[in-house]
């Protein structure tokens, strides 16, 4: 039953984006907004993945560089570079966080049967990854964004917010 629920919960619409050569997906309900790249105000003594903060229509939100977060080589911003604003379940309340990605792709409706368990991959980032969606255009790594932005980060994020 529990497994069923999990499976049901994984089915749905995902916003896919690219980091390097890989395609990732985030559950669409976690997403607040997609904006183009804009000037980021860097914060002192922040961890390296925390790029800084932006002012989004009066709200200051922290910006996380997913490449740095995933220990990928840094890349210069392009015209396609976007910021995906997500609602992360924090300690107290949902807080908004901006994720810098290489490019936003599309909104995909992923069925349950298209999702593969990631246990076969081992322990590697098992916490962050919900599963792997086998699509015609390629495999999409579905992320559990709450776990990506985990407690240690969220504290910093809250500090930043």
């Amino acid at each position, binding site marked *: 039953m529990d497994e069923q629920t999990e499976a049901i919960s994984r089915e749905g*619409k995902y*916003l896919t984006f690219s980091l390097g050569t890989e395609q990732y997906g985030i559950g*669409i*309900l976690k*997403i*607040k*907004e*997609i*904006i*183009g790249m804009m000037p980021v105000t860097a914060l002192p003594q922040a961890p390296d993945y925390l790029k800084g903060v932006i002012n989004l229509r009066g709200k200051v939100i922290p910006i996380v560089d997913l490449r740095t977060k995933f220990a990928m080589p840094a890349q210069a911003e392009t*015209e*396609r570079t*976007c910021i995906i604003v997500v609602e992360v379940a924090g300690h107290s309340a949902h807080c908004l966080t901006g994720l810098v990605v290489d490019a*936003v792709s*599309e*909104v995909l409706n992923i069925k349950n049967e298209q999702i593969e368990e990631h246990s076969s991959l081992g322990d590697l980032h098992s916490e962050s990854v919900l599963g792997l969606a086998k699509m015609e255009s390629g495999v999409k790594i579905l992320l559990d964004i709450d776990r990506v932005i985990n407690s240690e980060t969220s504290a910093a994020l809250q500090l930043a917010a």
Partner: protein
Amino acid sequence: MNSKKTTIKTLLKIAFGLAAFIILVIGSISYVQFNSNQENTEEILSKDAPLLLDTNDLVSGMLTLRRYEKDFFLNIGNPEKQAEYLKKHAADVASTLTLLDKVHSTAKIDEGLTDKNVQAFAAMRQDIKAYNAGFLQVVKQVQEDASITPQQANKLMAPVKQNIHNIETTLPEQEEQIKSMFRESANTVMSKSKTAKLILAVLSAIGFAFIAASGVLINRRILGIIGDVARNLSESSHQINGASAQIASSSQILAEGASEQAASLEETSASLEEISATTKQNAENASLANTMMQEASSTINTTGETISTLSASMIDIAQASKETSKVIKTIDEIAFQTNLLALNAAVEAARAGESGAGFAVVADEVRNLAMRAAEAAKNTATLIESTLEKVNAGSDLMEKTGTAFSGVSESVKKVGSLVSEIAVASNEQAHGISQVNKAVTEMDQVTQQNAATAEESASASEELSAQTEVMKSVTADLIAVVGLSMDAANSGAAQHARPEESRRQKTRPALLPKRAAASQRFIPLDADDDFVDFAAKA
């Protein structure tokens, strides 16, 4: 080698000069001698002889004087006869005195007489005067006193008898002295004449010997020279005969050559006319080519302008492409933004749940449109990029083409100038060829003349040959005149290799022994003997 220098002229000059000199010397000496003799004779004739005659007359005069005196005395009593004899006596006294004066004056200038003689004549005059005075006194006494007899009268003459005796003694003495002087003078003249005769004879002998000797020498010399000349002439006539034959054949060859040359010249003339025509064609073609080149040049200039215009157009195209590229970028931007908006719309629709399903579809469509727009923009950008590349490549090509065309233009200009030069050169060539043609025509004429001249020279050489025959006969005559035999002359001609030596030895072996010796010094006689042998064999 002096023999060559002494010509006949000089020889004759020397000979006649020598003869004239000898005659002059003999004549001068003779003249001097005869002049001296003449002077001596004149001396005798003008002084000595008259003196002698006058002295003789004086003696006879004195005798006559005495006779008249005696006649006067004998005719006493006959006054008429007395007067006559007195008159005669007076005349005789006067003539005797005159004669004595004459003798006295002559004796003064005669070198053969001394002062004594002169004084004697002076004393004689005194005596005569004294005698006359005494006689006249006696005459006076006789005329006054008719009784005086001739004996008495004769006695009356006693005072002047001494004077008479003086004269009668002195006069013969003087006469004798003058006679001896006359004889001496005559002897002197005679001896001088003998001397002159001797000198004349000796000088004449010497002169004759000299002239005869030189005549013989010169005769031999001249004969030798003329003999040489005759031999040379004979030899030359032989050679000229041969040479004239050669000239005749050469002239024949020359005439043939000239006619061949004339034929060749005609061919050359024809060829030249062809060349002239070709050259004229060349010139025309060159001027035509020049015109065409000018046209090509203007075309190339036009093309160059077109190319530069095209280049500008390419630049404009590149500019426009860049502008378009910017526009495309803007479109791409818009597509991107639209995509973002569509995604946001999809997110919103998902949040809306079931109620947002339709909106989600719209959002998806919008997103698709945005994606297509982006794709189109991307394609357009690629196209424009390739267009830009092509335009750039075209520009480069244009530049190269422009450079090439300017090169072509320069080449065309050069070609044009070359072609015009060719045209000018062709014209000059045509001119030159016409001149050459003229020259060839002249050459043709000259060749014709040459042919004629060659024929003339052939006939002239024949005439020369005939003349040589004449010359041969003349030479033979000359040799005969000189007194040489033809064989000697011919042998001289045969030995013309060494004519000097052989001639000297044959004609003047004795006359010029020194020279012969000198020649022997250079050419030994043995060798000459060999040569004589060779000549005999030949």
